[in-house]
């Protein structure tokens, strides 16, 4: 997700699986018994490259793996970590499970929503920089509140630290 650019839903689709990305995918094929088995990694590659998985990208993945768009769509919608709508350049996940909640994750979330300008969960800030969601357990209950920004893990986040952390993500 790092370095992803904000994409609009109506932008024309340029193929993802060309050049390096295509080579990455081709390198995966021998590791699995079928091309179908590469569906999840292929979807990750799309998300890595584009930030989200558009209907046109779904059609491309289907074409590349010899599947039907309907099947690929079914798989992509099953997993919550694939974005089927455009998200901000940086994707922020805040833990809201019981221990973090008790340690004040609500305040952290509120601070992040305010500082990013997102306003509400799932929305993208007007400048296209951030999207914030609340997630269940990030596996760091001893370091409440953990926040995952793109692939970076920040533990023991407090409302006071939010501005400093966000500044690192232009």
């Amino acid at each position, binding site marked *: 997700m790092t370095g992803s650019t904000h994409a609009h839903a109506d932008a024309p689709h340029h193929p993802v699986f060309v050049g390096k990305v295509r080579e990455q995918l081709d390198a995966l094929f021998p590791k699995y018994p079928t091309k179908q088995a590469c569906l999840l990694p292929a979807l990750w590659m799309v998300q890595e490259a584009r930030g989200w998985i558009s209907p046109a990208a779904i059609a491309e993945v289907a074409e590349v793996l010899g599947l*039907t*768009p*309907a099947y690929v*769509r*079914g798989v992509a*919608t099953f997993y919550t970590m694939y974005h089927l709508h455009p998200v901000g350049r940086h994707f922020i996940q805040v833990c809201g499970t019981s221990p973090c909640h008790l340690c004040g994750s609500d305040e952290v979330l509120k601070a992040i929503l305010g500082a990013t300008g997102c306003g509400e969960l799932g929305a993208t800030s007007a400048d296209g920089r951030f999207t914030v969601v609340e997630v269940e357990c990030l596996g760091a209950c001893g370091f409440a509140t953990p926040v995952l920004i793109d692939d970076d893990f920040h533990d023991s986040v407090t409302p006071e630290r939010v501005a400093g952390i966000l500044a690192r993500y232009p």
Partner: protein
Amino acid sequence: MSDLVNVTIDGVQISVPKGTPIIEAAKQAGVLVPHYCYHPSLPSPAVCRMCLVEVEKAPKLVPACVTTVADGNVIHVNNDKSKRARESVLEFLLINHPLDCPICDQAGECELQDYTFQEGRAGTRYSDYAKRYNPVEDFGPDVLYVANRCILCTRCVRFMDNVAGDAVLNVSERGDRAFIGIDPDHLLDHPWAGNVVDLCPVGSLISKDFLHKARAWDLDKTASVCTGCSQGCNTMIDTRDDVVVRLRPRPNLDVNRHFICDEGRADYRWMNRGDRIEAPLVRDGAKLTPTDWDHAVERLGALAKTARRVVILASGRASTESLGFVRRMVDGATVTAAIKVPLGPEAPLAGVPNLALRKERVPNLAGAGLLGYGAEWPAAVAAVKGADLVVVLDAVLDDADVAALAGAAAVVVIGTVDDDRLAGATLILPSTNVAEENGTFVNRDHRVQRYFQAKPAPGLARPAWWIAAEATHAARGLAAPATAAEAFAALGAMVPALAGLSYADLGHTGRVVSPTTAGAAR
């Protein structure tokens, strides 16, 4: 027999072939295992968990649809443990299923309704919670998806993927948000897509054509054969107050399994046409006069007896019986007989061998062939010029065909629908259509199949075989059959392939005859 295993199902001991799923073995033991996702014409995913049954010595309940029988299995479908499992599954399914049976087309033939009535809980434990809501979606030409009623058995997804080979449906999302999704760039417009409506065990996939048209319990069902093409798919004619309201497939594993194509499914409105010939009309000088059958068949018999050159222009929808007796009526003359065969594109169902909407869009092409009717329509129309008698047997004529009729000395129309263009005929005799008579068609593989009368004939209309046989009786004294069964039995004298066959031999799924040898010898 080493490939048979002995099992006991609800106390009934049976022997079934090794590899039989428990659910099919139970059927043979006369026990229905309630199920949703299982369908004999589809692969089984075991997702609905409804068919869980107890097998003695097995650690837990097993899904009967994918578990094959083993020798010595003692299986309990209707004991407390299995019933409790089903009650729980039903409770799960009903958490989000709306109680809109009063406005649901499936009510009365709904497997969720039936099983809940049989063994579900009397009340809900979820009255405090709102149900999931999704809007109705338009899937394609004849299919609506009512997501709220869906129990996610995935029969439709598997049909489109594994049988139709056009995988446009999927299961989208997961958990209680899951629904059947459709590829946004496609419609459910495969030529066989309508089958998902029949496959759906609940009222989730419904037919637009049948939407709110009738309640299932008001329908009368009659076994029939599709008239759409030479495949001869077995159908069920559903009538309400003697009006045909829908056609559905009737299982025949050798012909159409559980399916019919959309074109055949939609091809019923003509059966209800109101512009029918209702009384025999005979020509007295310049005008046609309505009369009774005694007089009409006498006139027909006299015409048929004296004619030397005869042309029969028949419909491919005419029954084997009618084609046979009309042909016999003019025995002794020089006869040119043909049926009109409209052509259309072939549309196969990928997953079922030898099943397609065929190019030849008539149901009785092979039957006509057995009885000496050709398919060379233009040649038969050309032969009309100078003929003593032309018999039009319910054929749909175009203007050129009608114009050619002027070249014949006499024209007899045995037909269903009133046609002003044929007002110059000598006799116009009302006959019954496929929904109004008993008869047989012979499909392209020479399977002779019966169809049954679904509604009464209008006015004085009679089956064409009856009209022809009575005329022959009047003119030549040959015995006339009183019933379609007798008419069929008598066909053996005309066609060796049908010799010795009776309606009882054909049953509900028909019988394949060899076009060259006698049927009874098989």
